[in-house]
């Protein structure tokens, strides 16, 4: 067992975990933050995307102990004072989802991507989201939502 202190969505969480506990299990099972999803569990689908120290990572492929001392943000941490994050609003406005299972990961990946590329082309969006899969294949509105998110962030 290992003691970890991880700041999750601005709150310091000090817990004891098994060394082999994955960050996604820590987030979902230990902290009860179930917005982060497990899709493929093989680092392909991106449903489990969270930010670690400001960078998008696949939390099914990171150990909780690796995040010790880190700052982690999940989908639950995006909204501020009851206001959805601009990228969350964009996904709502553009209906950037079908079943919604991949959406938390899509949004976290988008927020990370737009930090590096605040004004992306459609091709750049597709490349930027290539680690996130939508099994409903609802990509058209997802790409629209990313574009809209970029606009909202610049306002």
């Amino acid at each position, binding site marked *: 067992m*290992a003691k970890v202190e991880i700041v999750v969505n601005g709150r310091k969480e000090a817990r004891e975990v*098994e*060394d*082999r506990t994955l960050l996604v299990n820590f987030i979902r099972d230990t902290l009860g933050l179930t917005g982060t999803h497990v899709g493929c*569990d*093989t*680092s*392909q689908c*991106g449903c489990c*995307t969270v930010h670690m120290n400001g*960078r*998008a*990572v*696949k939390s099914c*492929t*990171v*150990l909780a*102990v*690796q995040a*010790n001392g880190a700052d982690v943000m999940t989908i639950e941490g995006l909204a501020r004072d009851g206001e959805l994050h601009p990228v969350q609003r964009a996904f709502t406005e553009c209906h950037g989802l079908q079943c919604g299972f991949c959406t938390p990961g899509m949004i976290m*990946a988008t927020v*990370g*991507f737009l930090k*590096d590329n605040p004004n992306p082309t459609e091709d750049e969006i597709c490349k*930027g989201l*290539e*680690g*996130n899969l939508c099994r409903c294949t609802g990509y058209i509105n997802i790409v629209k939502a990313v574009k809209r998110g970029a606009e909202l962030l610049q306002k």
Partner: protein
Amino acid sequence: MYSFNYVKPGSLKEVNDFLASNPEARPLAGGMTLIPTLKARLAQPSHLVDISALEELKGIEVRNGALVIGAGTTHAEVARSTHVRDAIPALAELAFHIGDPAVRNCGTIGGSVANNDPAADYPAGVLALGATVVTNRREIAADDFFQGMFTTALEPGELVVRISFPKPRRAAYEKFAHPASGYAMTGVFVAQTNGGIRVAVTGAGPGVFRWSEAEAALAKAFNVAAVASLTMPAADLNEDIHGSREYRANLVRVLTKRAVARLAGR
């Protein structure tokens, strides 16, 4: 995952000592290959030794005409680095096309090179550029480092610390990525180095290799026509559900042509 013990030593020296006294321990950098391997129960290390925060493995600099990249540098950091973009833009481009953004935020150059996946991108760049792999014990030339599928010159307890790339005159990397995994079905890195033309091929064979026939042809005439008439023998190449060995042999030639076209014009 089988259980293991996680340790995070504070210095390279402590890591060396730990690995020396724990033969079943494995270093953990970005974990992009190691953690999936553990999840599939394909490995059962006694310890994971987290080397991701070691200062000794960090940093990108230009030193005596060579680009030196710390083993712990992530693909995203290499892709973004102005040092890399200025010195060897083809290497920044290679890094930018590895996996996906989240993978690039974690995976490291040292991990990729040490793992030597036959479809990984970095081995092609390291070999074509005639780089030197600096470990915690010695310096190893790229030509001696890669020894076939998942096999390198690294000995137990030996750790890649940094990689030194002599600046080429020009270089280009062309890859035909598997559409799902992003791994190279075939990737060809062509470099005009001070020591001559080097062509390294990844993804097509059981390990990265140099295509000496193309190197000789390009040394005589550096243009697309010099490669167009060559044939890559298919016999020793990989064959799987994604493509036959003949398909990969053709990709080697086509991608070499594309890389040369980018460097030489038509």
